[in-house]
């Protein structure tokens, strides 16, 4: 219990720090959102409109900085995230609500698949050291990770979607999704290539990590003891060795899950897939402080939450951790 309480306190403090930094950083950036909007429309907006836009955006707050900070804290606690500037006059929550589900779906799915696949292959590669799989898998997957993601995605898009027509070339769906089977298959069809490219370029990291951990664990004394006692190969590797070896990977996995809400900007750009990554990019481009703050806040809090959960999970899986902390 004390363990839990101490962790919670730590995370509360970290959350407060994240919220405060989140408030301070955008205000240190130069520029004026109204001016950027005028520049963005390269000549189509009347120069006089910039004044009108500044009025619209409420760009000249009369409150002092500390007063703004207190107001900001209050609004965050109430879930009122403000009005977007880049997507004026939509509220920030509406902009995020349109993009967040797609990000959770695509990047969440890709991260989980990548972790599962990478870990499974890593286990196999470590278990069958010296086999063909062990020779090929780490090298190939690291090579794929080393390619710039953007390039890899565009090449696969060009070959598999444009030329061969095997996958849709862009977007998340053909018609707005419903809960019918047809619609779900459509969504999966559109997600296949974007998620696939993320998996291809990130599986190498999980694979190598798991393989190396498992090799170290397999050399431990208690593994020899288990084999001597007559346990089957399969059971010793999966139930004993992997369970110990996977613990470090879980921490990384938890952090990755936390960052899922940051979206995958490059994926969203290449495949014109709706998601928070591109929304964040547009917010930064348009100096949309309310939207930026809201997205950064979501990322920070979800990483903290994921970290907290992974701490709990780690403590549950590994009794040694509970004992040292308590």
């Amino acid at each position, binding site marked *: 219990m004390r363990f839990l309480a101490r962790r919670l306190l730590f995370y509360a403090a970290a959350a407060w720090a994240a919220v405060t930094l989140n408030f301070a950083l955008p205000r240190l950036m*130069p*520029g*004026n959102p109204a*001016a*950027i*909007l*005028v*520049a963005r*429309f*390269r*000549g*189509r*907006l*009347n*120069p*006089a*409109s910039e*004044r*009108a*836009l500044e*009025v*619209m955006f409420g760009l000249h707050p009369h409150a002092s900085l500390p007063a703004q900070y207190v107001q900001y804290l209050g609004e965050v606690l109430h879930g009122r995230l403000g*009005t977007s500037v*880049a*997507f*004026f*006059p*939509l509220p920030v929550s509406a902009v995020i609500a*349109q*993009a967040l589900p797609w990000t959770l779906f695509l990047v969440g799915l890709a991260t989980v698949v990548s972790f599962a696949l990478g870990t499974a292959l890593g286990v196999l590669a470590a278990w069958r050291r010296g086999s063909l799989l062990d020779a090929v898998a780490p090298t190939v997957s690291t090579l794929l990770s080393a390619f710039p993601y953007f390039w890899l995605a565009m090449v696969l*898009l*060009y070959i598999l979607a*444009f030329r061969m027509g095997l996958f849709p*070339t*862009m*977007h998340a*769906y*053909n*018609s*707005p999704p419903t809960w019918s089977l*047809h619609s779900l*298959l*459509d969504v*999966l*069809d559109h997600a*296949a290539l974007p998620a696939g490219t993320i998996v291809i370029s990130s599986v190498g990291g999980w694979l190598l990590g798991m393989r190396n951990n498992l090799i170290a664990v397999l050399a431990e004394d208690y593994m020899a003891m288990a084999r001597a006692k007559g346990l089957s*190969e*399969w059971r010793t590797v999966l139930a004993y060795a992997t369970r110990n070896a996977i613990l470090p990977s879980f921490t990384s996995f938890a952090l990755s899950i936390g960052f899922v809400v940051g979206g995958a900007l490059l994926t*969203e*750009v*290449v*495949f*014109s*897939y*709706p998601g928070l990554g*591109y*929304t964040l990019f*547009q917010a930064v*481009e348009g*100096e949309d402080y309310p939207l930026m703050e809201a997205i950064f806040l979501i990322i920070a809090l979800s990483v903290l939450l994921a970290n907290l959960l992974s701490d709990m999970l780690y403590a549950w899986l590994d009794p040694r951790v509970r004992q040292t902390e308590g």
Partner: protein
Amino acid sequence: MHGLRRFLRRLGATLAGAALAGWALALTAPATAAAAALPSGGNLLIAPNPYGPWQANFNPFNPNNMFAQALDPVYEPLWYFDLANNRSYPWLATAYRWQNPTTLVFALRHGVTWSDGKPFTSADVVFTLNMLHRYPALDTNGLWTFLQSVHASGPYGVTVTLQKPNRPVLWYLAGQTPIVPQHLWVSVKNPVLWTDPHPVGTGPYLLSSQSAESIVYVRNPHYWNGMPAVGRISVPAFSDFNAENGQEIQGKFDWAQAFIPNIERLYVAPSRGTHFSWSPPVSLVGLYPNLTAYPLSDPAFRQAIAYAVDRAAVSRLGEDGQEPPVPNMTGVILPFEQSYEDQSLAAQYAYAYSPARARATLRRAGYHAGPGGTLTGPHGSVHLTLQVIGAYPDWVQDAAIVAQDLRAVGIPVTVQDVSVGSYQQNVEQGHFQLAMGGTNNMGPSPWYIFNSVLNSAFTAPVGQTAISNYERFRSAQADALLKDYATTSSSAKQKSDLYGLERIMATQLPIIPLVYGADWAQYQTTQVVGWPTPQDAYALPSMYNWPDDIVILMHLHPR
């Protein structure tokens, strides 16, 4: 061991089988759905700028509305100004008359209905204009700096009173203001924050559906100018121009506005006569010199810059030859504004590329080259910075060519790539020496660009915000000419004012135009025909010009 291998093999086979089956199903399903939904009258597929997923905002006065990001086939203005041909046509108004220099009277069209069936009357026009007065944040054209009052005279008459005589306001008021229905907007609590999710307009198309990925319009069967021939318009959303251009080259879009390098070879030539690219000049792109900074305050120095830069190279290498170089420094957009150009000025101030002449001009003005590429002038040594928005690759390339050419005549220049926000702030505040930028799009005559660039009302001292006259040009003569054009009713007088302004542009070089900004447009005739062409330029070709897009839509019909 054997058990594991067998298990893995079976698992792999099952998974692969399931994936294939699911994928095959998904491949077939959406295609049939799309085919079934296509109505008669054809479908127009449009490729807008990659602004990312659509957000539901159809308020025509908001800067981010869906109309500004794609096209507006729903709302209409009072009058259509055909910028390509120097003519104008009645639209929602059938006639207008200057009763006296400060009173403008419109006669409205009878028989126009809103898309919800209610009749269009003067009450709607008056309401729209007064709403802009009540909510200045919506008045993006700044109408109420000139308007005094607006009222209806009968159900089809509108009288507009100005504070002072001003002719150019007609373009903004009648040509660039969407008229919205009073019966819908009067009950909106705050139109500044309203997203107008179900737009009701007088235009030829109605909003049919909207999602993050696609906006669909269907034709309005009760449109006052006859039912449009094309039944449906689809506007998908894009986040990246690469994928979009890839599809465009394959011929997926009927109407697009991309910048495709090597467009002749990639898009036009392989199409065997069905793909067209026409991106005519509509603005000026070039250098803004900060006239308060030495040595850019010296007109001779600016002239040297004009001679030093090879504009043809900027056009060919920086803009892929798709934005022609300006032939002279009068600032007139050719060919559309040809009739306003002072031919003798154009011939005299062509500033043909000549590094020798540039060097001679510098020497005569007292600038001497020193060791190591330095330059010293009457008030000290010269070193210029050229700011350019790093996110616009064509302008970055242009800036590199400019810097190279200036160094070749002995002017040391450093190019600075800055972000959009920093650039905009710097030019507005005057914290720059040379800036690579563009003017607004043209209006019905060269006055509109001249006004934004030369009018001292739009500038400010360094450290304060200049609206559009970033170079800080102040000239009583220019202000007088601009004002005279705006207040006179004689077209001969207006022409002589324009000639005077062109002379100022050409001799004093307040800005140094290099190439024309293009109105990007590509279209194909495989499904839909009736597009404007250079030979039949009945409207500006890009979907982003309003209400030209409506004019084009009404000319289109399925093949």
